[in-house]
């Protein structure tokens, strides 16, 4: 295990170029980033800024063209149990019950079945889906399905959770509730979370720090500390401090021509 002061994630001079020659597209360029252990880190950017590429590199699904990514002080060489992934869509497998879906990471890592069951039970309780354990995904609402997706990302107790616009497909009301639920889960599980979104309000509401990214090629142009008190609450969204941050971000995207 890495010492406590090791950053959860470190990116140094990370670049990803798709294709080669004249058709090459630079998705991410010279990314330097350090994310502390236990931090809630949001990445805010327009589409095409390389957010998803970044997550693929961190989850070990894609090798960077140059530079490197480290998780817990170790260079990422491929998929690993230390990293949990939550997709834009819940991506539950329709042929498995919710419990089976959530237990899948354990099964793949060949964890002892009794232990898988215990972990699945406690994680189901955490995301309030205990009574749906034996339901199939098509019997769940969008919000519940996404909670199950988060539970699956958490079940192997990874050091880092990567979340790719996890609430983008939900309606506004469900989304607000899910934001609060996620903060609860984060507080209880003490994970490092990297949260990609293109909702300014969501980023400010949830994160300790927000990175702003510019599109084509994807670069981090600014990292902003969000000095709002914890625990956060929906009501904070109407405070002047909150407005100060959202205005700043909105101006940034306006200057980019994205708003």
């Amino acid at each position, binding site marked *: 295990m890495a010492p406590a002061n090791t950053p959860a994630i470190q990116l140094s001079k990370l670049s990803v170029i798709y294709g080669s020659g004249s058709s090459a597209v630079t998705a991410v360029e010279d990314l330097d980033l350090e994310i502390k252990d236990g931090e809630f880190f949001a990445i805010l950017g327009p589409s095409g800024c390389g957010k998803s590429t970044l997550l693929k590199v961190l*989850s*070990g*699904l894609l090798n960077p063209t140059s530079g490197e990514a480290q998780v817990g002080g170790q260079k990422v060489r*491929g*998929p*690993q*149990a230390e*990293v949990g*992934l939550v*997709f834009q*869509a*819940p*991506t539950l*497998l*329709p*042929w498995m019950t919710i419990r089976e879906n959530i237990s*899948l*990471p354990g099964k*793949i*890592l060949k964890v002892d079945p009794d232990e898988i069951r215990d972990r699945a039970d406690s994680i189901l309780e955490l995301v309030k889906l205990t009574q749906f354990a034996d339901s*199939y*995904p*098509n*019997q*769940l*609402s*969008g919000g519940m*399905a996404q909670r199950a997706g988060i539970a699956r990302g958490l079940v*192997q107790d990874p050091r880092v959770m990567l979340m790719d616009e996890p609430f983008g*497909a939900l309606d506004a009301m469900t989304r607000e509730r899910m934001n609060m639920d996620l903060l609860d889960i984060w507080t209880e599980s003490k994970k490092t979370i990297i949260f990609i979104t293109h909702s300014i309000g969501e980023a400010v509401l949830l994160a300790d720090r927000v990175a702003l990214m510019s599109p084509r090629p994807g670069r981090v142009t600014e990292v902003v500390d969000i000095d709002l008190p914890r625990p956060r609450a929906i009501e904070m969204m109407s405070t002047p401090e909150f407005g100060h941050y959202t205005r700043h971000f909105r101006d940034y995207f306006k200057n980019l021509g994205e708003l």
Partner: protein
Amino acid sequence: MSNKIKSSSSLSVPEWVLPASFFVGLIVLWQVITTFGNVPQYILPAPTDIVAAAARNINRGVYPTHIVATMKSVLVGYSIGVGLGILLGTLFSEVRIIERLVYPLVVAIQSMPKVALAPLFVMWFGYGFTSKVVTVSLLCLFPVLVNTVTGLKSADADRVNLIRAMTGNRFQVFRHVKLPSAAGHIFAAMQVAVILALIGALVAEFVGSDKGLGILIQQGQLNLDTSGMFAVLMILSFLGISSTAIVRFVQRKIVFWESGDRTAHDLH
């Protein structure tokens, strides 16, 4: 409110009533034409003649050996064809080089009417069971193979990445995502293959066998026993319908998530 619902439902008739009455009407018309229309029995026997012929043959115990002979080769050939189809389809979709090498050949063979090979198989494998099984399995093989390849390739990229991100290996990706994604496609081909299996068995019997429903049909032709031939056709369609129903039943049990309410899934 509840009154209204009740009265409207008591007025409506079940969906099967209309096609069933049409069918009965058709049989009655057939009977009337053949009875009063001076149609020779060897051209078109009356439904009652067909039933009488069937009853006569049932009493004489003609059918069981022939049904068993046909269905044995259907069952064995179908199992081999479907099994090989899934196996080869898997190999094709998982090993690129094999696909590159062999798939063009598969496409070429697929566009050929394979029943034309039945006489050749009789020469190769002799009269009877083996050549029938080979014809049946060859006919079943191709649709299953093609649909297995299509099905395995249709697996959602996010789902594949999900398993990979969990450190899943190729086999785990196959078992947890690709195979279940392909199951619906494979079963669709298996339904088509049921009828192809019957066709294969019948043709093989026509060209080289001494037992089976195909032989009964040929005997009917030689004896100008048209009623007897129609009776065999009835048995064949019954076998076709019930075999397809069995496959459909198994499909619904195994690929349960693709039947019934898919609305929640479609929303994703």
